[in-house]
């Protein structure tokens, strides 16, 4: 019999850590595209963040599947999610890349803040509410 259980603290922290890694990679890819924006013959890099995020969302309903998905994605390297397009760099929109970078940076910082609060609660519980 399979018991329905809620997501424990460690799984929640691991989920946040994984999404932070993805957001950091997203910011790095955008920063690289910005740095190479005007260099001839450079290639635009794309990070497929939708696939791992949709897998995480789909696994949220079941804690066991979520843990398995996090473990599988943690082992997967970020490189495998990055693809370089051989198209001309002229198609790159600098505004889009800056927006992408700002979004990723904001989400990363919000997640880091959430993680800090979670740790603060855990520390308070360890101290017995003091």
């Amino acid at each position, binding site marked *: 019999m399979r018991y329905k259980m809620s997501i424990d603290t460690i799984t929640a922290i691991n989920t946040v850590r994984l999404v932070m890694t993805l957001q950091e990679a997203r910011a790095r890819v955008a920063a690289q595209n*910005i740095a190479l924006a005007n260099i001839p013959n450079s290639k635009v890099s794309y990070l497929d963040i939708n696939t791992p995020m949709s897998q995480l969302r789909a696994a949220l309903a079941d804690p066991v599947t979520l843990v398995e998905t996090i473990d599988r994605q943690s082992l997967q390297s970020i490189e495998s999610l990055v693809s370089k397009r051989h198209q001309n760099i002229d198609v790159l929109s600098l505004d889009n890349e800056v927006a992408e970078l700002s979004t990723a940076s904001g989400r*990363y910082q919000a997640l880091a803040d959430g993680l*800090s609060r979670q740790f603060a609660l855990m520390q308070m519980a360890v101290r017995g509410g003091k």
Partner: protein
Amino acid sequence: MSLDKISETVRFGLSYERMRVEVASYNLAISNLALKSGTPSTVQRVAVPSGFFQHMQGKPIVITESVEERLQVDHSHPLADEKGLVHYPKVDAAKEMATLVSATRAYEANIRAYNSLRAMTLKAFEIGKQT
């Protein structure tokens, strides 16, 4: 992987764009500078070092490019030739101005990228910090 050395890539982007601004300014500055007899007509361009795309490292380099001459009749000019023609490098002012604007915008975007990545790193250092 190049993404691991992103700060170096951003720094390269900054120096590349700054050099483009300087080179475009230089080209505009010399556009009305008469050439001495026998001096080749050249402008400067910025290029990436060889092997840059493999390692995402290095410094941008300035190369010299030959351009056509622009001739102007001015018999009183001290550098005029025997026909009274003064030789100037043919600098495309519109192209140089476009380079100037696009390089300035890209430089600002690179600074923003650097600041955002730095803010992310500083925020990561605050995880678990006692307030």
